[in-house]
Structures are given as C-alpha cells and as structure tokens.
C-alpha cells in the first residue's frame, strides 16, 4: 500500500502524517507536498507512527525533503519512527551540506586560459629545445636513439601510408585535370592541363595533402601512443631507469618522419601527375610524349625544392605537435582522446598556416 499523506496545523508548525509504505511510488508525491509546505516558511513535522515500512527510495525522498528544508532554512523534523523504518533511516546518511560551487570571475577565467596557453607554448618550446639537443647534438656525444627504432617508425609512418597516399594523390591529379580541361578547352589550350596539374601538385597539393594524410594517420597515433604511455606511468618508468624519454621515444619518430615525409611527397607528386597524365592522354587525346615534355618544361627546380622544403617543415610540425600533445596529457582515457584530437586539429591548422606563409613569401620575394 503506497503512502498516504495528510496534513494539519499543530501549534505553529505543519504536521504531515504519513501512513502505509514509504516507497518509490510515493516519493515524488511526498517531496511535492513537503516542498509546498516549506515554501510558506513554516516548520514541518513528519509523523511516522503509521508508516509500516520504508524502502531505500522512500528514505532518500525524506533525505531530499530535509535537504530542501535546509536550503530554505526551515526546520524539518520527523518523529515516532519505529521498527524497520527506524532502522532504514539510521542506515541512511544525512544530506550533504550544500557546498557553494566556486564561480570564477571573468578575469580569473581570462587569466587561467592565458596561463594555460603560456604553459602550453612554454612546454612546446621546451620540447623543441630538447628535440634539437637530442636530435642534433647528442649523436656527436655517442648518444643515439635505440637501434632499430628509426627503421620501425619509418615503416609505420612512411611505408604503411603508401596505399592511402597513392589513392588520394591519383584521384587529386585526376580531378584537377578534369576541372582544368573544361576551362582550357574553350581556348583550345588543353596541353596546358599538363602545366596546371604539374605545378599545382608539385608546389602545393602534393606536400599539403601528404602532410594532412600523415597528420591524420601518424600524428594522431603518436599522440595516442605517448599519451597512453604517460597514463601507464611508462614515461616515468623510463626516467627512473635513467632513459631520457625524448631520446628514446621522440627522436626515432623525428628522424623517421624527416626521411619519409619528403619521400612520400615525391611519390605523391609522381602519382598525382600520373593521374593528370591519364586524363590528358585518354580523355583529352593529347600525345603521351607531348604531355610529359610539357610537364617537364613547366616545372622549374625552384618549384620542386619549394615543395620539398615545405614537406620537411610539415613533417616536423606533425611529429612535434603529436609528441607534445601526447606527452602533456592529464586525465586518463579521456585525456588520450583529447590529445589525439588536439594533435590532428592543431597540426592541420599549423600546416595550412605555414603553407600560406611559404606561398606568400615565395610570391612576394
């Protein structure tokens, strides 16, 4: 039998008499009734004499009533609990005192985010300095990354990316040739498809697309891997063993990507140009020899070296941001996820910014 609620006034306070079983079914009704009484700032006394039994949900409802009363600063008491009801109430804990959550002011928020950005930047510069030391100077002091680690990272970062890089570069070359063909055909200048595809792929799209693919594939993997190692205290374990984590974990990745990224970019350029070549020959009916010689004459050494320089800088952006996001994580699995996202988003953002700087400078100078 669910609880029955009656209420009457008794010398200045509201007497709420309950009878029956205090359970989940009656919890909401009870809270609603009590809240209405408490709103009028009148003390409430609950008569529990006729309550035969109370479940833990019912008890929690009483605790909630008490919490509401405490918040409104109105006395809320109960009396005559007996038997199992008394036992149940004794097993429950009083409601927690409302702790006022510290609301931060606007200035504090601004200050905190500024500090956060500063700490992040400082940490990144520190990583950059450490990487420069362990990557450039330490080898002269006969301190090398662990044997075999550079090769295995090169396989992960470079070789395993070949299929996806092939597909995307090929399709990119194809698309560009199609798009250009329609415009150039109006002038009867379809042979210039070769120039357009060649130059835009070698100068821009080859390095850029390869970098974005590698950031998504390997930048995220680096962040997640190092992040998990931080969570599992593996980085601390390395430090305690006297093994510098930068040398052991970061440098092999930096070395590997420094070699694989330009190589992947050259490969991507070749495949992209081949995509354009197929369209030029099969769809536009250009002669293969003409297309190839047109491409070669369109490309200057400056274009090629510009593309290579970009790919090198992009590779360091990817690996350093990946390592930085991974090594500074806090907060377990959620932190690893956040680090992975951060690494991809910030590397792609930085890559595009760096690319625009490159392009602007090379055009202006």
């Amino acid at each position, binding site marked *: 039998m669910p609880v029955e609620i009656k209420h009457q006034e008794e010398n200045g306070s509201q007497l709420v008499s309950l009878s029956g079983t205090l359970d989940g079914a009656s919890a909401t009704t009870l809270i609603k009734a009590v809240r209405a009484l408490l709103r009028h700032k009148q003390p409430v006394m*609950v008569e529990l004499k006729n309550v035969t039994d109370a479940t833990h949900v019912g*008890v929690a409802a*009483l*605790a909630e009533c*008490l919490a509401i009363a405490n918040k409104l600063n109105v006395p*809320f*008491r*109960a*009396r005559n*609990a007996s038997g199992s009801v*008394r036992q149940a*109430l*004794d*097993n*429950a*804990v*009083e*409601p*927690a005192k409302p702790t006022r959550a510290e609301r931060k002011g606007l200035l504090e928020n601004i200050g905190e985010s500024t500090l956060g950005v500063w700490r992040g930047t400082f940490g990144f510069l520190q990583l950059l300095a450490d990487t420069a030391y362990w990557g450039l100077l330490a080898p002269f002091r006969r301190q090398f990354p*662990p044997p075999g680690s550079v090769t295995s990272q090169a396989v992960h970062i470079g070789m395993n990316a070949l299929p996806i890089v092939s597909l995307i570069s090929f399709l990119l070359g194809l698309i560009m040739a199609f798009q250009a063909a329609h415009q150039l055909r109006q002038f009867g200048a379809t042979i210039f498809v070769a120039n357009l595809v060649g130059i835009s792929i070698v100068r821009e799209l080859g390095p850029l697309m390869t970098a974005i693919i590698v950031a998504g594939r390997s930048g995220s993997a680096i962040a997640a891997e190092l992040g*998990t*190692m931080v969570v*599992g*205290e*593996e980085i*601390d*374990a*390395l*430090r*305690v*063993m*006297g*093994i510098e984590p930068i040398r*052991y974990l970061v440098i092999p990745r930096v070395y590997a990507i420094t070699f694989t990224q330009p190589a992947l970019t050259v490969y991507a350029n070749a495949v992209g140009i081949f995509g354009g070549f197929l369209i030029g020959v099969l769809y536009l009916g250009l002669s293969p020899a003409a297309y190839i010689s047109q491409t070669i004459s369109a490309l200057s050494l400056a274009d090629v070296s510009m593309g290579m320089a970009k790919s090198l800088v992009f590779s360091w952006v990817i690996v350093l941001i990946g390592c930085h996001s991974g090594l500074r994580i806090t907060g377990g699995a959620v932190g690893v996820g956040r680090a992975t996202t951060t690494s991809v988003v910030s590397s792609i953002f930085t890559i595009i910014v760096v690319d625009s700087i490159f392009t602007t400078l090379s055009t202006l100078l």
Partner: protein
Amino acid sequence: MTNETENIIEIKNLRAGYGDKVIIDDVSMNVKRGSIVAIIGGSGCGKSTVIRTVVGLLRPMAGDVRVFGQDLHSMRENQRLLLLRRMGMLFQNGALLGSMTVGDNVGLPFREHSDVPENIIRRIVESKLAMVGLPHAADLLPAELSGGMRKRASLSRAIAMNPELLICDEPSAGLDPVVAAGIDMTLRDLQRRLGMTMVIITHELPSVKLIADWVVMLDAGNVLAQGTVADMESSEIPQVRDFFARKADDGTIGGRQSLLEALES
C-alpha cells in the same frame, strides 16, 4: 663514492606537491642501508609523492632529499644517470612498456646502459625472471600477463641491474592474499640474498608486519609516527594503534551523522 653515509636516503623537512598544491609538508625520514622501510598511510596522504621526489620525478618545493648522500635534483645530467642506475623502482601498475616483450622490458636497462652483449643479457634476463618466479614469461607481451605476473615482471626489471636501492609502490595492492604473500616473500628473499635496501609503499597490514624493519606512517602530508612494527603497535597515537589493530573509524558514516539523527535532533 665519497661521503656515503649509513643512510641510503635522507629526507629533511621535505615539502612537495603538484602545481600550487602542497601534498606533503615537513616530512623527515631516513632509510638505513640494508633495511626494509614501509611507508604506510591512508589513500592520498602523500606516500607516492615522497617516493617521486626520491627517484627524481618530482622536484621538492622545499627541504632536502639525499639519495646515497647526493642531491638528485641539483646534479649534472650524466651523474644523475649514474645515480639512477643504482636504484630500481617497481611502479604501482607495473609500467612495463607495452610495445615490447617482458624479456625486452627486463633487459632494457642493460641494453641502454651497458655494452654487455645480447646473448649475455638474455641469460641475465632469464635469471632475473626466475628470481621473481616467472621463468617462462620472457616472450610474452605485458598485455598477456595477469596483474600479479605484471608486478613480478616489473619487479624483475627493477632489479635487473642489481640496484642497491629498490623502491616499490604498492607491490601487493589489488592481488589476492596468496599472490600478495608470494611477492612479499620474494622481496624479503631479494633483500637477504642481494642485500638490497628497500622502500615499500603499502597499505597492506600483513605485508608491513611480515617484511618491514622500520615503518613510517604518513597522514595528510605529515609524518604521523615512525618506528619498528612493535613501536607502532604500542604507539601513543590512537590513529597509529587503530591502523595496526585494523580498527575502523568512529560510528559516523564518513564524518556525517545518520538521517535518523538529523531528523530527530
């Protein structure tokens, strides 16, 4: 080493924490050569923080930490590395490198710090793994091990270089009593055979009674009491006696009164 004292670790008025938050304050303790010291205390009282300053993972905010008579935090990098080779640490969750086999993990300090040829490292790894009771685990990956095995593997990595000082963060936490006792016996055995000095963080009372020569009890970032197990059991301080008598707190539920009391007051 020049001014090497009887005390392997000397901590004086140590204050340490993370960011602005002070976790331990004014902690002083010594660890004598060849002894097993247990650091006990409730969760979050700063046991691990003390250890992290000792092994150089955390810089003290104030006070002095000396290991083998030297200050790890103000040394040149290459001397620091030499000092680190004289100690080993067993982390709470093992902290084995997940990307390599157990055998490679145990051999890692050797590969990194010595010119010992590979085939000899393999023999050393075998014997260290056997010493902790894992004679056949060398080719397994850490993910294939159970919790107790992971701790043992990590222990064998910690003792790979025969360190003079072994530090264990909760070596037997979360293991069943039999496995936990096995690890305790292994530690005791290692101390007898190799004469290692050990610092063990634990809140397993049986471990403390079984292996500790000296007990340091921390509470809320301070040293509450230190002494032998017998000293602690007859301590004047009720909290210490309660810990050793396994007595629960007073009747309140986490410091709060029951709903009945609140309603009838």
